[in-house]
């Protein structure tokens, strides 16, 4: 399988801080790739660099064999990349409906179908369709954020800690939905919930101190106690 997204040795500065110094990873078509690492390791920054929100100052980011490292964010998104940010990025004064409307790139039949699928997945959103996003509960915001990324047909989804704040039953639904989508959409996931990551991930990359320090097959990681202890502090 070819890789849809290939990030090579990117370095990123935020202001005067040098945050990433050499992150590399690949996301293969049709797979779920998981980025792991402790707090402050640089996972979020990595995703933001891919999205062009914190542009990388060196290194390459290839998507569909095109270097997107220098593109502005909206163009990157336009190439078919969806993003669920860590802080959900809900527009608090807009209603759930309006939040979805802003996200929708098309208004065609397919999109409407997907909308239906999303509302079945997260019935809460339907329930609070006309409510301001800012008033939603933490978990509901998370659902809305995911829903906004699902509404368009994307080739690649970058999802930052989707399980955060979600009830176990919803986490399960999200997991199922990701597995369901993975046929058409390649997924890059940052996840602290190792249980979830290990269940749905195909391969993993561990980031520490702004560098990729390890990568491999998820199955192998699950079994490798030593590795888990070393990088993730769990046994």
């Amino acid at each position: 399988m070819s890789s849809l997204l290939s990030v090579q040795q990117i370095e990123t500065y935020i202001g005067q801080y040098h945050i990433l110094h050499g992150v590399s990873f690949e996301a293969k078509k049709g797979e779920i790739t998981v980025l792991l690492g402790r707090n402050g390791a640089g996972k979020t920054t990595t995703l933001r660099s891919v999205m062009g929100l914190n542009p990388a100052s060196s290194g390459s980011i290839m998507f569909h064999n095109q270097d997107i490292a220098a593109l502005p964010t909206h163009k990157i998104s336009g190439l078919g990349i969806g993003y669920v940010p860590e802080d959900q990025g809900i527009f608090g004064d807009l209603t759930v409906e309006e939040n979805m409307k802003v996200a929708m790139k098309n208004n065609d039949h397919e999109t409407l179908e997907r909308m239906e699928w999303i509302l079945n997945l997260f019935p809460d959103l339907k329930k609070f369709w006309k409510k301001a996003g800012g008033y939603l509960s933490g978990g509901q915001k998370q659902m809305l954020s995911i829903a906004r990324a699902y509404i368009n047909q994307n080739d690649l989804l970058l999802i930052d800690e989707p399980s955060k704040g979600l009830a176990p039953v919803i986490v399960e639904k999200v997991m199922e939905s990701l597995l369901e989508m993975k046929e058409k959409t390649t997924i890059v996931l940052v996840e602290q919930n190792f249980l979830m990551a290990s269940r749905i991930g195909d391969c993993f990359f561990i980031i520490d101190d702004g560098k990729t320090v390890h990568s491999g097959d998820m199955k192998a990681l699950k079994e490798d106690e030593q590795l888990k202890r070393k990088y993730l502090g769990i046994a």
Partner: protein
Amino acid sequence: MRRYFQVSTMAMALVGFMLVVLPSIYDSRSFLILMTQIFIFAIFAMSYDILLGFTGIVSFGHAMFFGIGAYSTGVILDRFDHTLPYFFLAILVGSLISTFISFIVGLLTLRLKSHYYAMLTLAFSGLFLVAAEKWRTLTKGNDGFTFRVPDVMIDRTTFYFICLALMLFVYFFLKRITQSPFGKVMLAIRENEQRTESLGFTILHYKVLASILAGVTASLAGSFYVMSLRFVNTSVFSIDTTLDALLMTIIGGVGTLAGPILGAGLIEFAHHWLTELAKEHPIFERWLIFFGILYIVAVMFFPAGIVGTIQKWGRKKQTPSKKQSIEKHKAAG
């Protein structure tokens, strides 16, 4: 951090000293008047900064307090006698009225987002302007009136020293307040009101206190302003007066006390210099254009104001770089 504050205190003491010896070196009285006006506007701008920079409250009607001080002084010195005791009485009256008004306005609006405070103060200062216009028996309308000042204040050099002393006093006084625990809570309110509240601080008290502090200081500035002119008219209540304070504060650096002083100096000097140029070079006839460009350039090169931006450079040097801190982390872990 600690070192920085000491540096700034020393710097201010040095500047103070230089300003004290200045008149004996260069005794042009019109220059002294310019400096005196800078001191007074610096006080006014610092008072504004207590609101804007330290508590995060935007006001579009700060001229209200300036005007209250101005008219209290003008009216009392004109109606009664131009002696020192009456001047002190005038300052007291100005402060009391300002306290009262800022208390009321504060209670009415500080519950709300600062945005509405801004517009409501604009409304109130507008009403004061109309009142000053309409209460003609007291104020002689918008033409205003001249009055005499206490004998000790007639001499411009003496007045220069009085204003300088006052400015330094206000600076150190406000600085102490902003670095007190009280001041830290003001900063916290600026950053995140709701969180401050849940830490156990009654934010309304702090905001009202800040608003009173700012109001009284502004009123003081207003008193000395009309003392320097020996004349008062309704322009002290105008939106331009508020905007002057706002510009000086922002250009110098919001949230620093040296900023407003520097801002006042910068704007007054730039003004002086540009109008002088206007007399010699015809291209500067429209000197206001260059004045406007000055503001624009200031924002572009000193986004946090002059003092604020310099402070940021200083901080950059002081904080350990990210790499160092990570290494430390590793060594510890």
